[in-house]
């Protein structure tokens, strides 16, 4: 499978800047769940920078709108009444559905939930879509969940054992295309693979086996508690604009599988 071209990349990362909240339209800022607003903000920033309109959506998310699930259960367990709005938002693909609605994207709409490997899965799946689904909006989004942070002392937080991750939050949005003019950065990925040692080199080897070896700089695995780590590395790599081929590895302790994204600038 050939690489896809990156027409643009934007992000909304609360840790880095909070201007994104001011960019939200009133109807979204008003009542939408936080995870939706981050995905929206990153997408809005992306679409401001390019004229092409996305025709499909692939979202990668580790935990989805878990906070909304918790809110629904709180209502249920406290008073016996769960809020319908919380339930709708808590379905994993609600972000992708909301993006389609807000930006009128009526083509294929997929949501991948592979933990820390979610962006890799989203890119891998994007590559399977038909030509008329391009350009494709690919968004990685995850939010910090206060409940998990509260439970952190009790959760297995090293990557040797399974964990319900926590940490960084934000959204990274990419517009991917096929058959584009040359000179654009390229990206491709392998879907999660259950390999033994989850070292960056092992992840890179999985990529090399699928696509053929290429001289590349392998990024560190990063904090594998963070679902957003791979997406942030991809964003940083594109931002630095340093030429070269970079491999961003990822590992999901929950599924015990690793994946890799290759970015060529």
């Amino acid at each position, binding site marked *: 499978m050939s690489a896809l071209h990156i027409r643009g990349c934007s992000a909304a990362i609360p840790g880095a800047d909070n201007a994104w909240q001011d960019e939200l339209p009133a109807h979204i800022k008003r009542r939408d769940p936080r995870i939706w607003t981050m995905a929206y903000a990153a997408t809005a920033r992306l679409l401001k920078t390019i004229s092409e309109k996305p025709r499909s959506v692939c979202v990668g998310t580790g935990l989805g709108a878990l906070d909304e699930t918790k809110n629904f259960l709180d209502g*249920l367990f406290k008073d016996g009444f769960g809020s*319908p709005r919380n339930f709708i938002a808590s379905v994993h693909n609600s972000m992708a559905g909301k993006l*389609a609605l807000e930006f009128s994207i009526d083509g294929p709409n997929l949501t991948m939930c592979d933990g820390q490997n979610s962006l890799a899965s989203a890119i891998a799946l994007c590559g*399977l879509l038909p030509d008329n689904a391009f350009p494709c909006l690919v968004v990685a989004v995850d939010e910090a969940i206060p409940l998990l942070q509260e439970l952190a002392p009790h959760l297995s937080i090293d990557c040797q054992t399974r964990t319900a991750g926590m940490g960084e939050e934000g959204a990274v949005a990419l517009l991917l295309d096929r058959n584009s003019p040359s000179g654009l950065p390229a990206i491709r990925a392998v879907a999660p693979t259950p390999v033994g040692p989850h070292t960056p080199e092992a992840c890179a080897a999985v990529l090399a086996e699928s696509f053929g070896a290429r001289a590349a700089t392998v990024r560190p695995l990063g904090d594998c508690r963070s679902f957003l780590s791979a997406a942030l590395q991809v964003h940083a790599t594109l931002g630095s604009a340093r030429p070269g081929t970079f491999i961003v590895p990822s590992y999901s302790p*929950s599924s015990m599988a690793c994946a890799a994204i290759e970015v060529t600038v």
Partner: protein
Amino acid sequence: MGAICTAGSGVRAGCDAVFQGKDCLTPLSLFESGLKAPPLCGQVAGLSDEFASPTRTIALACSAAREALSVVKNRRGLSIGLVFATTVGGISRSELFYRAYRTDPETASRAAGELAFHEPCAASGFVCRAFGLAGFVTLSTACSTGLHAVGTAKRLVEQGAFDACLAVGADALALLTIRGFASLMLIDPTGCKPFDGRRAGTSLGEGAAAMLVASEKASAAIGALPLARVSGWGASADCHHMTAPHPEGLGAQKAIAAALAEAEVSPADIGAVATHGTATPDNDRSEIAALRAVFGRVPPFFSVKRTLGHTLAASGILEAVFAVRAMQDGIIPPTAGFEQADPAIGLVPSNLLRTPIRHILKNSFGFGGNNASAVFSLDA
């Protein structure tokens, strides 16, 4: 193919129930729903679990996966991938933990174990390891996921990522989904009535199904005759509303048309439609509107939601399994739960009909206006 549902374990058990148009729903007994009365649901009885599955969803998935893979007598170094579809994941276990934790903070000490399989991908990873599969992707697009998984499996095989790919959809019943759907007024506690004029909502169910998709070469190597071809897959978004479908089924029309186009069949070639048919007032009406727009003359159609319940992410594959079996046997099943026509729809589901079917259309529509359609074909 493999399946497990309220009608029983195995494709055959489900087939028998579907072909007879049986009503297999029973009042919810797996757990207390907190609703006025236990709603009628498709519950799996006596789930045997030989894989020490950490969650009910995984136990269901393994049952279906094992049946589907049993056709592979010798893997001969073939790589088999996995596309896993689930909405619930480990929620049926996580919600119990959370309920306990809310009243007793000491419960936190159990967090690591109880939440280890919360994520959807934890289920995929487990199934992947249990069956020695080569790699996986985990999809979660609510009710349409199952069919997207089948389409994705097809693409992965076509593009050479794997020699064969198992598409598995699994969802266990959970308090979250039962109460969630109830809060949206989408449940008919007395049992769903697809396409009926008195329909008032759907009935939830649990189950799992698996389809092993392989290239011709891999099929020959495996030594199994293909049951049917996945000839077309279409996907689209309504861009209309987060839970209600577009009234004219515009998005659905696109997905259906795309599936037909890829399958290279004309509407007239479709022998039957295995509908999404959830029996909500909105879905049935807009699904028929979409079918009318694409077909003009709508082929005979049926819904199995009263027989099996709406199994969410599993439904696309589970119902596709029975659609393929129906096509193989030349049977259009009756629709359990249907009694009175709806004048606003103007069409009624088919009675039991024996007729050759060469191509069958399956629809699956999910929350967020997510549409999936697939065409399955018998080889000549």
